[in-house]
């Protein structure tokens, strides 16, 4: 069975602080895909990144970076120098074959000015 756990329900930081959102996944498949989505207060989910299980290279995109570690089944997301506009609910998700997606319960990030 597949499962995604986001243990942090809510995180509050002050602007310019760095913050890491944790994501732990469970699967017995050797090929799988991991995703992060952002859901701003406006409601629509926005795709941030996709990673496949064969690529453990960390990725950086501007202030965002992702750390994928198969050894710990984790796919953590770090925002550097957070901004108020980063305030949103962030979801981590897992898919085996793009037929079905398993989402975590989300982490609500509050960035205060």
């Amino acid at each position, binding site marked *: 069975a597949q499962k995604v756990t986001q243990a942090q329900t809510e995180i509050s930081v002050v602007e310019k602080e760095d913050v890491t959102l944790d994501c732990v996944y469970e699967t017995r498949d050797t090929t799988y895909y991991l995703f992060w*989505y952002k859901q701003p207060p406006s409601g*629509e*989910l926005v*795709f941030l990144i996709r990673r496949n299980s064969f690529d453990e290279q960390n990725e950086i995109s501007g202030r965002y970076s992702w750390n994928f570690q198969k050894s710990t089944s984790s796919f953590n997301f770090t925002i550097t120098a957070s901004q108020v506009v980063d305030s949103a609910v962030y979801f981590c998700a897992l898919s085996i074959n*793009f037929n*079905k*997606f*398993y*989402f*975590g319960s989300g982490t609500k990030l509050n960035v205060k000015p």
Partner: protein
Amino acid sequence: GAGVSQSPSNKVTEKGKDVELRCDPISGHTALYWYRQSLGQGLEFLIYFQGNSAPDKSGLPSDRFSAERTGGSVSTLTIQRTQQEDSAVYLCASSTRDRGHEQFFGPGTRLTVL
């Protein structure tokens, strides 16, 4: 517009009534997904369509829920004999292999069952 659209945006219904929720995916997207998001919760997968067929219906919560897709485009999620626990935001997403299966989400339909 170029994005995924859903209608209605809000639906209030009485317990026991049937409701239909509509999703218009991005043109050319062959895959379509329905999710349910209860207040403060994550997304619960309901069903996936590839073209007009639904190879995976395992996420539908009960036989009161059904979905169809016609012409490889518009999809309708139907909930019969609605119950209060059906109250949630129903999200639709579409994707295509050409975009790496990135899901584009619609704004959702907020369903309230009184």
